[in-house]
């Protein structure tokens, strides 16, 4: 009796692992879902032709404006090839696991670029359960304790535990959608496999800009919007008046996850470069307030490189931003060129 009762959960875990921890189902995730998109982009990076030992990878969220194509047009000048796995909505916790996935032996890249809002800034994303949506495909059994406990409340910890242990619970909607819409899913997957990487590399973010947006910072009011903005976009733009993040944990979250990335590459040839992103079409008054982040501490220890804090100030212009937070194509291209040169300055010439 005992054998039967014990064998049942063991077989269940084995079947579960076979489906969701191998290539049986994960390649068929909806490519336009959070998890599927991450899986696809990481897959593209793993499959990308490895140009040599002078590759630089960037992580980041939607604000990371690196256009690898623009940066790589300077390869002859800089000596480095750029790639990005920046995915909208991802956070430092995601970046750690994403980097581990594309660089399992921590030896693929000359440098990893990590963007932040401000070197003196810190963010508290410990309770952000959305990270689970991105990371479930790439979490391993050995990640479960640390990943689960990295959340700051028990409900999130439970959901993170269940999601990372039993991935089927997490993917059930995706699985059921696959059963219902098998053909369109396969067509989308085929398109994504054929064009996803090229679309990300060559995609155009558009030239639409926020020239015409004017803000009275003292009154906390937007005085005028660009004429193309509809009501929804205006509402979204109003966020420019809010502080970008809450700063409640004194840098604990950043110290943990940036620290883990730094530790992973400690003693390797890969350098970690932090950059301060262009702050927006305007420099918001509060983004200059001094805060306590861990980044300058890392730099003082000599474990990371800090890009010039003002390297990208010239991008902070309304005509180079598509909205209050994101660069447009001309802005991103300009930023990418500046970034490629800044990386070359920090790393020096490739030593062959």
């Amino acid at each position, binding site marked *: *009796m005992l*054998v*039967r*009762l014990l*064998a*049942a*959960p*063991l*077989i*269940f875990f*084995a*079947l*579960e692992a076979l489906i969701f921890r191998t290539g049986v189902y994960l390649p068929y995730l909806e490519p336009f879902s959070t998890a599927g998109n991450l899986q696809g982009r990481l897959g593209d990076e793993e499959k990308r032709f490895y140009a040599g030992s002078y590759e630089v990878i960037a992580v980041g969220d939607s604000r990371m404006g690196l256009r690898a194509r623009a940066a790589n047009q300077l390869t002859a000048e800089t000596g480095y090839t750029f790639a990005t796995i920046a995915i909208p909505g991802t956070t430092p916790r995601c970046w750690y696991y994403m980097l581990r996935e594309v660089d399992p032996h921590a030896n693929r890249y000359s440098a990893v670029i990590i963007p932040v809002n401000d070197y003196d800034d810190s963010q508290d994303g410990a309770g952000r359960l959305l990270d689970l949506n991105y990371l479930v495909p790439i979490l391993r059994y050995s990640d479960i304790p640390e990943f689960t406990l990295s959340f700051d409340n028990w409900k999130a910890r439970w959901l993170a535990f269940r999601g990372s242990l*039993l991935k*089927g*619970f997490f*993917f*059930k*909607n995706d*699985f*059921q959608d696959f*059963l*219902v819409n098998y053909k369109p899913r396969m067509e989308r997957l085929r398109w994504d496999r054929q064009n996803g990487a090229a679309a990300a590399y060559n995609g155009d973010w558009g030239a639409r800009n926020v020239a015409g947006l004017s803000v009275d910072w003292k009154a906390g009011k937007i005085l005028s919007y660009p004429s193309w903005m509809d009501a929804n976009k205006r509402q979204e733009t109003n966020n420019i008046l809010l502080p970008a993040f809450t700063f409640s944990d004194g840098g604990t979250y950043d110290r943990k996850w940036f620290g883990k990335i730094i530790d992973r590459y400690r003693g390797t040839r890969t350098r970690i470069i932090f950059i301060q992103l262009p702050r927006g079409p305007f420099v918001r008054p509060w983004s200059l307030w001094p805060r306590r982040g861990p980044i300058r501490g890392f730099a003082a220890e000599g474990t990371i490189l800090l890009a010039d804090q003002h390297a990208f100030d010239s991008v902070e212009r309304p005509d180079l931003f598509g909205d209050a937070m994101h660069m447009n194509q001309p802005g991103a291209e300009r930023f990418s060129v500046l970034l490629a040169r800044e990386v070359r300055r920090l790393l020096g010439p490739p030593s062959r």
Partner: protein
Amino acid sequence: MLFNTTQFFVFLAVVLALFYTCPRPWRRVILLAASYFFYMSWNVKFVLLLLTLTVIDYTAGIWIPRVRPERRKLLLICSLSANLGFLGFFKYYNFLTDNLVALLKLPPHSFALDIILPLGISFHTFQSMSYVVEVYRGRQEPVRNPIDYALFISFFPQLVAGPIVRAREFFADFYNWRAPSGEEILRGTLMVIFGLAKKMVLADQFARIADMYFKQPSAHPGMLAAWSGVLAFSMQIYFDFSGYTDMAIGMAQILGFHFPMNFRRPYLADSMTEFWRRWHMSLSRWLRDYLYIPLGGNRHGRLQTYRNLMLTMLLGGLWHGASWNFVVWGGYHGVLLSLERVTDLPGRKTPLLTPLRIAITFTLASLGWVFFRAADLPTSGYIIGQMFAGGASHMLWYGWQLWLIFSILVLTVLQEKLDWFERLITAPAWVYATVVASLLLSVELIGVSDVAVPFVYFQF
């Protein structure tokens, strides 16, 4: 705390651990405490109601054999009145006053009260009443220990939705308790997992379609939409209720109790008479023994028999809920049962026609479910109209759900013919373990778990 939640399984694990590690005399107290905790997790206040009814019926059970014969009936009436009084107030007060108000043309809801229906009241009152009646009839020894009686009424696996267990069945296990054998534990475990899969994988999936359709039938006009909505509810209610009872029976078996079966593949019945021998068997048995037979059963001629059948089914319908829909549903089944008696249909078996008879019986049962599920009688009428005279429309089911049902049908027929469930218990270990693992995987992948969908019969 629903059976299909993580909390419940944590609770069950704790109860099992305590039950099997504590000395035997403590076990009844552990089960009683667990049962009251289970009930209180839904609503603390209504524990008083449960306790009150338990005290009344326990006292009646003690006193009935002790008093003079002419006073026994009085005690029985007091006990039944208390049970029916509480049941009537909580379940039927608003229904009765709303109808009275409509009859007297007073403003709607003039006497309406904001009443919450206590969980499982229809089940535990019936179980308690059956005990008192059996003591009155001299077929049941009064239970001396109040803890034992309280446990009989509140035993958590079957407290909220049955099966309705007879006192002699329960106490036969209770007073002669022996540790369940390995085979019983395997059977119980399999039943719990099967029940969970029936509920989460099948019932809750079909509930999505049924809820979508019955919420606003006019949004899905046409014959095909109506049939698919109604058939989805036929599937939902069967898998929901039988899933719950499988879990209840399985849990009881793991604890060393043997509950009667409540469902025996009712959709394979080839007549409505047979359907009621296979559907909610513990309620059918209760209605037969405490209503149909006391009314005279079939002992006083044909007309009286039909009258008794109709009365039993009407009251059985009303037991399910306080609305005219349930009365009509009960009456519909009463008429069908009477017609079968008139024509002696169940007695006339032709093997070649059996599949057709099964299909007709299933269709008739499904038509009855329209009254059971629809919001009111006009909506029921609209749906039935759409089923038979609606225009062209589309199926509300997905292709994979049709395959799922086809697989279930094959498994059901095989169970009817081969009883593979029992064979599984004694099959090689890897077969048993693979089946359990596959069921768990189906719960994980197809089960509805974003919200814990309550069991349909919890509302009764």
